[in-house]
């Protein structure tokens, strides 16, 4: 076989592996995005900032020499709590005012936390060490690290957990009922405000987990939520916004595409790839890959 072609294929495989790891992280962020949209049809632009706050809190937890596991827990809890507080005092009062006011409020909230973050934590990037000591395995011409495998495993576990939650627990079924028809859910006796709070908490806590796992590729800083939030939003739309497995699928697609394009073509195109995919999807299937065109309710 042509030697160049062989190298090319090995390279592709390497980018694919890196892309799956990167995509797992995007998936973790996109899940919360899609869950919040699913339940109250809000595009929560502040979702990336919830992640940032969590990662910052996790960073300080490590600094106060808490073990990694505890720091991850701190990050998840702080992301979750900040999300619940924001939902309660910012989003809930304007929930009935329509989508445009909600969108503008979400953008304002996002900006607020970006500058709040710079004031509180400083604008300098901070480093979170990988959550396990990195070991690299050589498989033929490609490298796979145990961190990559663990990240993929954790994301997979989170997906299974969400599937179990929404299909086998009372609160999870109430989430599905509320997201489908909030008024009907209220008539069943479901406290939909509680379910919405819970959804914000869960989605943000998963993002906080993602924030801590990201330590292996990037440093954290107060503006990180913007870029990540955008990619997570695109991932959610590509997979079909509001659909949990769709968000994961979208995350993987974007992670893989970014790594292929950056590796095979130009790394400066990395951040543009997600938008290119978004445009294609919006042209071909606006409801997203797993999206169904649900008939308008009568």
């Amino acid at each position, binding site marked *: 076989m042509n030697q160049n072609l062989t190298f090319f294929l090995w390279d592709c495989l390497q980018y694919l592996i890196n892309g799956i790891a990167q995509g797992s992280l995007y998936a973790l962020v996109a899940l919360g995005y899609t869950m919040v949209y699913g339940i109250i049809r809000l595009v929560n632009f502040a979702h990336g900032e919830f992640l940032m706050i969590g990662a910052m809190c996790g960073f300080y937890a490590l600094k106060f020499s808490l073990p990694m596991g505890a720091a991850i827990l701190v990050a998840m809890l702080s992301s979750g709590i900040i999300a619940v507080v924001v939902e309660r005092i910012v989003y809930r009062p304007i929930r009935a005012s329509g989508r445009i006011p909600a969108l503008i409020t979400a953008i304002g909230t996002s900006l607020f936390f970006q500058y709040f973050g710079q004031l509180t934590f400083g604008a300098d990037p901070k480093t979170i060490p990988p959550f396990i000591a990195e070991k690299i395995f050589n498989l033929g011409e490609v490298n796979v690290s145990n961190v990559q495998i663990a990240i993929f495993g954790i994301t997979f576990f989170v997906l299974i957990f969400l599937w179990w939650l929404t299909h086998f627990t*009372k609160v999870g*079924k*109430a989430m*599905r*009922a509320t997201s*489908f*028809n909030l*008024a*009907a*859910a*209220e*008539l*069943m*006796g*479901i*406290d*939909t*405000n509680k379910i919405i709070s819970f959804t914000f908490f869960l989605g943000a806590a998963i993002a906080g987990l993602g924030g801590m796992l990201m330590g292996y590729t990037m440093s954290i800083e107060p503006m990180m939520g913007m870029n990540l939030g955008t990619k997570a939003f695109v991932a959610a739309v590509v997979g079909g916004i509001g659909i949990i497995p769709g968000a994961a699928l979208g995350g993987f697609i974007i992670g893989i595409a970014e790594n292929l394009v950056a590796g095979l073509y130009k790394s400066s195109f990395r951040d543009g790839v997600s938008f290119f995919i978004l445009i294609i999807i919006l042209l071909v299937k606006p409801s997203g890959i797993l999206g169904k065109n*649900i008939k308008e*309710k*009568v």
Partner: protein
Amino acid sequence: MNEKILELKNINIHYGDGAIHAVKNISLEIYKGEIITLLGSNGAGKTTTLHTISGLLKPTSGEILFNNEPIHHLPAHKITAQGLAQSPEGRQVFANMTILENLEMGAYLRADLNEIKADYEFVFSLFPKLKERENQLAQTLSGGEQQMLAIARAYMAKPTLLLLDEPSLGIAPILVSSIFKAIKEINRRGMTILLVEQNAYLALKISTRAYVLTNGEITLKGPAHELMNNSDIKKAYLGQ
């Protein structure tokens, strides 16, 4: 008569920040064990009234007493928790969930597992179609079957007062009679029922009393058999 279960006192309801006065100073009362029909043409304010009783809308003035306690300030889920359930207009089943899951949502607030089981059996005996398809998504049901599911789901809350908003709307004539039979059977088992219906003849036939809503006002009320012979009712609702 029996104990009063629900009372509306001088209820006014507005839409659009007061621009539309949909329900005007209505009062009504329901006693335990009754089937009450609320009649009225399109846009009369029937659904608005039921939404307000269930807490999805708030009255601009007036009082709603359930078992002699005011409920009009409570959120909808708390009213359901007190034993007042509704099968809403247009069915509103959870199309993304299975039939069994829909029924589970109906029983959301209950913990009496054994009785829940018995109630599944009861609603399945009322509507055997639902049993056959218990693990299919509600969106695969026909309109009439969805209506059955909506009634069964509301029943699963085991309320003392059950509101039914147009349970026979858009349903094939053969199914309509089975739905009215089910309503009668539910009532026979001790549930009080407030029924909104277009099908005035069948509704009046199973009711104790009825109220007529015209442009948001109660214009007529009385025992069902009297209203059935009322010449205005005959003209407007019975097509005679």
